[in-house]
């Protein structure tokens, strides 16, 4: 089980991690500034295993991989959204952060609700209800299963 942190439509990667932190030497130094403009306490409050839940087009804008990377570094278990912008989606899978398309969950949970995700079943459980999410295409699931694209490079 993990807590829900809920965000709106068209959350862009500048909101996830702003430009002024991108050239910090490491993701560890950036992560305290995650979602700073939208929820200044996000980084302090989030616990490993919690979820980010969003509406349409999550992660639009810049290709900065720091966006999924800070979420992963804070221990976000998965991002569940009605839809994702393509670069964020690809980056998230590549670094091993599950980005799961789930059309129904957004309208049925509130900030702070406890939910559970089963990647193998392709379901999210919230308030006793089970919601279906889209399973990843096999190609992407295999990248995630290996622990991200870099891990697969080490196998070459």
């Amino acid at each position, binding site marked *: 089980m993990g807590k829900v942190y809920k965000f709106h439509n068209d959350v862009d990667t500048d909101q996830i991690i702003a430009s002024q932190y991108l*050239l910090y030497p490491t993701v560890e130094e950036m992560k305290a500034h995650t979602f700073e403009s939208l929820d200044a306490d996000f980084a302090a409050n989030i616990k490993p295993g919690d979820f980010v839940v969003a509406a349409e087009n999550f992660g639009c804008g810049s290709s900065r991989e720091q966006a999924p990377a800070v979420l992963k570094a804070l221990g976000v278990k998965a991002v569940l959204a009605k839809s994702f912008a393509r670069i964020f989606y690809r980056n998230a899978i590549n670094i091993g952060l599950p980005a799961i398309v789930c059309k129904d969950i957004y309208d049925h949970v509130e900030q702070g609700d406890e939910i559970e995700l089963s990647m193998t079943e392709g379901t999210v459980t919230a308030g006793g209800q089970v919601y279906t999410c889209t399973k990843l295409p096999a190609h992407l699931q295999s990248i995630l299963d290996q622990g991200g694209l870099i891990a697969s490079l080490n196998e070459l």
Partner: protein
Amino acid sequence: MGMTIAEKIVALAAGVPEAKAGDIHTVELDYLMSNDGTTHLTVDMYNSLKHPRIADKNKLVWIVDHNVPCDSPKTAASQKKMRDFAKLNGITFYEGEGVCHQVMAEKYVCPGQLIFGADSHTCTYGALGAFGTGVGCTDYLYGMVTGKSWVLVPETLRFVLTGELSHGVTARDLILTIIGKIGANGANYKAMEFTGPAMKTLSMSDRLSICNLCVEAGAKTALMEVDEITLEYLAQHGGRTPKACFTSDPDAVFAAEYEINLSEVVPVTAKPHFVDNIAPVSECADVAIDEAFLGSCNNGRLEDLRLAAEIIRGRKVAPKVRFLVVPASREVYNAALKEGLLNVFMEAGAIVMNPNCSVCWGSCQGVIGEGEVLVSTGTRNFKGRAGDKNSFVYLASAATVTASAIAGKITQAF
């Protein structure tokens, strides 16, 4: 069945006779561009590999453009890491040469190529008939090590352009209008292809501006056909020759087709905080500004500077307004210098800066403070994009930005 330009380029890069939207192909990449926004992380990941190696260093182009000159010790350390790695490994490296996409257009991109850039606006290269797409640093590293990557072949939205832009209306107004029409995710995962009789009225500068902004509708790439204008640009920029010149087949399948009459386009602005939040400039005419920015990979080219200089020649920037003029590349800067354009801006009270991303990315010289308003030819107006998280960015054309700098409020130029 026929293929789109996007399908043809992927097929060529994959070495297969046919590619269809929805297929996943392993492709050979023609170039891999990276800038100082993420390369320090790529270097760290590279150094952590069990068997680090570079497939072909001649395919790599590294460009420091986001913070030039550097603004802090932390940034300096990250840029040094990138610079040192490039030197050690013989990677082509530029610094102070301009915004990465403008430099790539001037020196490298050829029609028919498939190019990865670790920057979302890599879709700019479609102006030269190349499939450019933005990726993160992990995808970049995979391409750097293997020379290859995987691509999901995109569906294509086709835009048939007719008519001609009216005086004072620019290609930037056109693409902002299109983004307003289809929305910030209207082209998500898709290619945007531009064709039609109006293409011959659009210069290479216009075309780069149009393709550049397609990612703001979510597009994976943007594409245009190669014509005399393309070939002349290539000839003038190092005599480059196309890898292949493609057009979509008459029986190619498009996800949707739109006809846009350019003569109906009016000057527009994208209001805070979304690029698809479009309104005619005339509706924002009372918005007071603190800063105006002319530059970026979208609108910092010579034609933009000429248009702006025509408007501001002999006039002054409004009191208490900063007008930043930032040519997109060294080539543009030098040409503007020779034409006397930079003098015009300096005499008007503008701040003329060296080629770099500047305030378009909000982490270098020119950022705005709490509650301030920027009118900008940059690429994005997201909350906090140009500085303080409680500031406001209006996107508009070079003409509107310049007229606004003079008036001290958002103003239509013509």
